[in-house]
């Protein structure tokens, strides 16, 4: 992997752009096409591009599987937790109207949080799948 100079330079240029675009898709999903699912997948593919060019070991050192396991669970927890929060505040489950002083503000906050949860779970699960499939020797 050490001799693909063009690939390494291009990947170094592209990876930050891909990650930034993923964040844009994540947080601009209320205004344009996109949202948590797409953002999570794009984020994961940026990291996977890094892993393809610079090797899995370096990637696993930066993003250890243990951390990703916790992240993939915490995304679902964040989503379900928003629902519990609305229950405690007096509304129905996942009724975001209760999250802020006015219903539309509550909806904005709720959608932002659940999309964030979706994005975290999707990105970390996709990366875990990639680790699981590629992180083994031939024939294992």
């Amino acid at each position: 992997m050490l001799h693909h100079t063009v690939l390494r330079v291009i990947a170094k240029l592209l990876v930050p752009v891909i990650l930034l675009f993923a964040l844009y898709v994540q947080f601009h999903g209320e205004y344009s096409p996109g949202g948590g699912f797409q953002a999570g997948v794009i984020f994961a593919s940026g990291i996977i591009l890094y892993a393809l060019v610079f090797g899995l070991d370096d990637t696993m050192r930066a993003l250890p599987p243990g951390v990703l396991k916790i992240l993939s669970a915490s995304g679902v927890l964040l989503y379900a937790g928003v629902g519990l929060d609305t229950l405690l505040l007096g509304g129905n489950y996942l009724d975001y109207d209760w999250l802020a002083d006015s219903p539309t503000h509550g909806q904005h906050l709720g959608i932002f949080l659940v999309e964030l949860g979706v994005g975290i779970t999707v990105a970390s699960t996709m990366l875990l799948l990639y680790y699981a499939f590629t992180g083994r020797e031939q024939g294992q």
Partner: protein
Amino acid sequence: MSLDHAIDILLLAFMAVIALAVVRLRDLFGVAMLFSVFSLLSAGVFTIMDAADVAFTEAAVGAGISTILMLATLTRTAREEKPNVSRNPALPLIVVSITGAMLVFGTSDIPRFGDPQAPVHQHVAPRYIEDSPSEIGIPNMVTSVLASYRGYDTLGETTVIFTAGVAVMALLGMRRTRRRNGQRKDTD
């Protein structure tokens, strides 16, 4: 014939050709790549139908990450498909023909694309379209349906993805022989 129709026909023709090539090809690397192209073309079809969110998902998931996962799986298995050993192709052909004929027959009942009288546009869609700007207040109605009106479904989908990840972890695990400081070390 409008430009939209011409592009539709072109895209669908390409998809048909690629589907036939996938069936004929023995090289699984090529098949994975053709699947990716197929997904990209269907993303184009969705764009023509003004379904930008669906096209986005199809391009990111279908053409992007699932191709990578298929290729990663290929490195674990054989690169070539085994030659087909079944002797009698008549029975599968009959089953496929009947299923295909039934599907084509079924499409004759489906309302035309964009028909305002279609049941899907009569049920809850008008309420979402009329009330979403005042109730939710965000411009992208797809997001307001996905995350708020249909929040339970999306919670379920997220849980499905999480469960799939857990299942793969349980089946494949994270065992990896890593070379560090010259010695092989098993890490879990």
